[in-house]
């Protein structure tokens, strides 16, 4: 489970530089280039993968995820958190935290 950072901190998730993926009608296929592991992300988790790549603020991501999956706010948030944790553990994405002001100063 992802732990929220201290007040004034921002959590960011970045795609790992060795991760490639392709969308298909059954979900998303993600390849970890460092290990060669190939993984299929099925629906509805594939919706999370799509949304974290969009230039949306967190609230909009939650709105769309909730609407698309039919989950209420809490369940949608749990889905998001679970996916982020799993994908971080699998090395597909990396989590970083930074100070809020630092993130502003550096754009």
């Amino acid at each position: 489970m992802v732990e929220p950072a201290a007040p004034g901190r921002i959590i960011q998730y970045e795609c790992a530089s060795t991760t490639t993926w392709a969308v298909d009608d059954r979900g998303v296929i993600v390849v970890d280039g460092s290990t060669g592991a190939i993984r299929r992300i099925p629906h509805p988790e594939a919706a999370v993968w799509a949304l974290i790549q969009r230039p949306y603020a967190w609230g909009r991501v939650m709105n769309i995820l909730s609407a698309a999956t039919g989950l209420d706010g809490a369940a949608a948030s749990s889905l998001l958190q679970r996916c982020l944790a799993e994908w971080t553990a699998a090395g597909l994405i990396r989590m970083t935290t930074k100070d809020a002001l630092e993130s502003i100063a550096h754009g």
Partner: protein
Amino acid sequence: MANISLTQHCPLACDYCFARSLPDDFNLPDFMSRATFDWALHLLQRSGIRQVRLLGGEPTLHPQFPSLVEDIIKAGLDLMLFTNGQMSDSIIDCLAELPTERVSILVNAATCLFTAGSALDPSVAGLFRRLGNRIALGLNISSPAGLSDHILNHVSRYGLLPAVRLGLAHPHAAADRPFLHPRLYRMVGERLVAFLDRARQLGIEVNLDCGFVPCMFPNGGQELEPELARQIGRRCSPIPDILPDGSVIACFPLARKGRFRPDNGDDLAEIRNRFSALEQSFESLGIFPECAACRARSNGCCSGGCRAAAIRRLRQQPFTFTMSAHDTPSDPFVTHGPNRRETADPDRLAAYDRSAPPRWVIPYVDQPLTFWQQLADDFDPKLLSVYLPLPGTAVGSGRPRQPMAHLAEFLEHRLFPVNVLVNPIVLPKPLDKIWPDIAHALREFERRHGMVSVTTADLLLAERIRQEFPDCTIAASVLMDIATSWQAHLLNGVCDVLVPSSQVMRNLPALRELRKAFNGRIRLIVNEACLPGCPYRRQHFFEMGQEEALPHSLCEPLLKAHPWLRLTGAWVLPQHLHFYDGLIDEWKLAGRVTLQDPVRYRRVLSAYLARTPMQPHEIGGGPASPLHPLDIEADFFQQTLTCDRRCQACSVCREYMTARMKHQPEV
């Protein structure tokens, strides 16, 4: 079967050629050495292969080509030669002497040699005349137009074997070479049906190389003859390619994915096994997104097309997803951090989307509910909120009091979100003393009328409001006089919206700097209409907040002496809003006093929403705008957005006004 590539050299430069696509770092020799060739031949023999397929580049360029071929025949193997057809007479002589039944030649119908409507290259024609009965044609399709049936005519003209081999130009190991993109497959399939029909009429058999898929044909491949239909949809079962240095690859398009030197004892079966992991690993990928759920795939009729084309679909695109530290699972839609705040209201979310057209903040004027209902019906989606001074006596609004007879009804019906002004240019008391009254008044307003947004001219007051009302949208008023990026930076984390100072309202470079520095939204007042940097402004606003009646503008004598200064005022006409497109997130229309007439209000608002032309004297607002009918041309206005503001030394505005001024009564 196995392919032996004798060389990468070829005098032609077909852009789709896979042989040319091998990476430079493979460091291949110009020609396969004799020793390597002998080893390869031995490999094929002990693997039980009956046919040697020689390719290149152009294999006949190998200096020892005749003796290599002779060795193949002596070893009891058959030969298939892939060539561009251009070869010397001595090579033709060599091939002519070989047993006909053991040698077949596939001439690649390279575009440059087989141009429709032109005579065939003479050397190729010469080859055809001498060895036509051993030659079949091959065609690599690199574009839909490249599939032309004119090559079929050569079969009868030169007595070639009645067989044509078609291949698709697959992607290469080197990513930048042209290939037939799968999205063009359908177009090729449609032309292929006509090609096959023509070939059938001429009695020519067509064979398909790897990568053809059922869905590229209009009827899913069902229109093909059974023998041909069996050739489509099969996944490449690698015929290993032995490169000039003796290394082996599964195929040229997948050269990067696997290349090794076989051990001396290996045979082809063992080599294929080593490639099988590569085969299986990308099994789930097809050349189209539809492959994953395709019935032909699930039935085993198709394995998803060329593996290299499928792998090419994998993209590496960096992205960053940001979560505020305060987003908790139990309350997903409201954040309490200092930065972005989102609510479940899609309209609020839309306001953050800078690709959405900017919306408008408009003034409250004391009109009956029907006036506001009509505005809502006509313009609602383009309107963001209505602003009005915080009711009550807690603090002034920086203006004389305005009529409020219809205010209660307006607030009760909640036709629009409301933005309350708490923005006297100077607070009437020290903040600590006045803050409790302001907080109480805001709490009451929120309790009775819902979530508020607030505009304030004081940064300390903004910080207090932020702490007390974390979900409130806070705008830094134009009276806060934010003009530099450092000032804007100070607002980050406190204010959501910045209304730039009138000093920079007509200064696009300065506005760009503000935008870079400020994390929130930029809201521009289109008719604030004060003189930028006016030295009388602060006193004037203070006086406005003190008296019941509207005091005279203190800048009047200045404007009388220099009327052209009105052309520099902080205003922009509807027809010139586009100069700010992409820079501004929200617009604000001023006019609690000047637009009290409902007809004028609607006319001005409509013009701004539709960007239809108006003249400055029509838009209302502050004092520094022309009082007489005057056309403001786009070129002139644009010039003033980027000039260096050295008005004391410049005559542009003065000359413009003099040239266009019409003597009419002031309106």
